[in-house]
């Protein structure tokens, strides 16, 4: 399968009053054509910054994409794009759905206008054609009465409907890559399920690759082919959905899975929780960032960064636990 996007050693920092915040510290991953990849992690782990940098939305300054970072989209390094190339890429090749649709849409323009705006920027010059395409898009994302709703303003829609408009704008030019940055976090569960279904359907139809960013592993259980787990600006584990859920390797991933109660099981046991809080990214810890909260922490974890171990095709974890010297130390944890 062809690699559509390849991120190599991405490092992004933000300069603030309290010093340099190292939001992303050497992230590498790839997305194949038509593949659904999920990036999972808690707030502040750098998942949104990663996605926004791929989309070219990281403001520099205060942000800084460090030397040595490479983002290769379809064979071209986007960090070296000119402004004109950026314009074609953003929205044309790659589109994004934001978490807060009300903040992302322009409140003073009708939704029809906002969808058309994008179509016009990316090629459709004829007014009538743009209108009919807009109506088609509104229908595709499940807005009832599209001709009438074309003239409505964002505040006249409910949260779920607004998110549908965002999706319509995102898919307007058939992008090769769609980034969904917590698209359902602000929505109710029933609407969340509808939106996820819609994204799944559209992506399948057009063979679009998706990067789904979320903090909720449940949301991506069914949707993502591959899952990347991030913690404190780094990838800690990566693997297929089955690998992550059933053959969990990294202690953080396991803790993340065990700290949410399951609706379908009757659990009597106390919820597992992770002691403490994520590290301060102005002064990231030496060694493994999770060491301070990890039940398996060894001496080496606080001193040196863990290497990457591969377990089977495409399933990797960064953890000292899997070093040959640590073998048998902790016993094999339940499968």
């Amino acid at each position: 399968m062809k690699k559509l996007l390849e991120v190599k050693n991405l490092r992004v920092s933000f300069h603030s009053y309290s010093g340099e915040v190292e939001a992303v510290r050497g992230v590498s991953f790839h997305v194949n054509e038509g593949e659904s990849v999920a990036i999972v992690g808690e707030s502040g782990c750098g998942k949104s910054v990663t996605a926004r940098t791929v989309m070219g939305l990281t403001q520099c300054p205060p942000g800084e994409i460090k030397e040595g970072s490479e983002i290769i989209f379809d064979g071209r390094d986007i960090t070296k794009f000119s402004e004109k190339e950026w314009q074609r890429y953003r929205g044309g090749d790659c589109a994004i759905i934001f978490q807060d649709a009300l903040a992302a849409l322009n409140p003073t323009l009708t939704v029809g206008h906002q969808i058309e705006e994008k179509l016009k920027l990316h090629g459709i010059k004829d007014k009538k054609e743009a209108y009919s395409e807009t109506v088609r898009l509104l229908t595709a994302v499940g807005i009832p009465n599209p001709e009438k709703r074309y003239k409505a303003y964002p505040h006249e829609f409910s949260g779920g409907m607004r998110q549908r408009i965002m999706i319509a704008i995102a898919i307007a030019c058939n992008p090769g890559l769609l980034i969904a940055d917590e698209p359902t976090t602000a929505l109710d569960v029933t609407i969340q399920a509808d939106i996820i279904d819609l994204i799944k359907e559209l992506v399948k139809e057009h063979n679009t690759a998706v990067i789904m960013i979320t903090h909720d592993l449940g949301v991506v259980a069914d949707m993502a082919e591959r899952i990347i787990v991030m913690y404190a600006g780094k990838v800690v584990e990566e693997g297929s959905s089955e690998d992550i859920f059933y053959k969990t390797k990294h202690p953080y991933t396991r803790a993340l899975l065990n700290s949410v109660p399951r609706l379908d099981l009757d659990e009597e046991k106390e919820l597992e929780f992770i002691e403490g809080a994520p590290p301060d990214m102005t002064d990231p810890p030496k060694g493994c960032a999770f060491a301070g909260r990890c039940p398996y922490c060894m001496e080496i974890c606080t001193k040196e960064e863990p290497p990457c171990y591969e377990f089977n095709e495409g399933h990797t974890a960064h953890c000292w636990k899997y070093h040959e010297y640590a073998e048998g130390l902790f016993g094999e944890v339940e499968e």
Partner: protein
Amino acid sequence: MDRGEIKDKERTKDKEEVKDREKILEVKHLKKYFKQSGKSVLKAVDDVSFDVYKGETVGIVGESGCGKTTCARTCIGMYPATSGEVIYKGKDISKLRGAEKRSFTKEVQIIFQDPYSSLDPKMRVGDIICEGLRAHKMCKSKEEYNKRAVELLEMVGLNPEHANRYVHEFSGGQRQRIGIARALAVEPDFVVCDEPISALDVSIQAQIVNLLSKLKREKELTFMFIAHDLSMVKYVSDRIIVMYLGTIAEITDSKSLYSDPKHPYTKALLSAIPIPDPKVEKERERIKLQGELPSPTDPPKGCRFINRCKFAKEICAREMPQLREVEKGHSVACHLYDEQI
């Protein structure tokens, strides 16, 4: 002590109490309307009746705008009820005056959703925690207040030195702990937790939930736990109330909610909740709801759920279904279960 043992203990305790489970709160035909601009009236809570027993955790779930927060706030007297009664320990809370009112405000506390806006940024943490104590003059000297503040901070897992800091120096999870310490400072009997974990990260959520259940056991509290995260509510609650558009759709114990939901809305709600297990998730079938949530200023006549229910019959448009017990401890408001009674 692990949870299994605790459950056993609770069970034996339950048996002793089963004869006369004391009602701590009785809500009877409670309505809370808000006047809006023009003539429209927002019916946030519309004829809700339920009981809360001493020592249990009652969960309230529903989508945003279903009236769960309004219902809880009206129950503890933060809003005056439009009509209906809230009876706390045998007394109507709207008729409490003087000393009785003071003791009611001491016994009933709330933990708010947003740990960022519910704590005063200009006050030191120690003062925030002791504000309630001071209002009720529960300690005699300054030293005693300070001592109490330290105790409370330790109880919720914070350091005693934190008493002199300001709120902005804390993370979301820590702030929520401060909110919990403040609520429990005056030694309440009944605590409303209004989405206490929604603003927090997953790993921190579990910390707070475990803390709440530990405190509940130690202090024999009664909880009303509001959240839209059904898996968490199921985990913490003994009984669950499902609300839809200002009315109660179903009341049941937390186990049979998932294994045997009755109301079509509950079924749809449950099927929409993602389960973090790809195999289970692939096999589940989702019940899709048609249409949108109607506006609470103009709710449908008859059953509130009628425009989204695929089982809707003619009677549903005419009559509002009443909450009826269909099995022991399992009540549902739906005309589909009329014949069974």
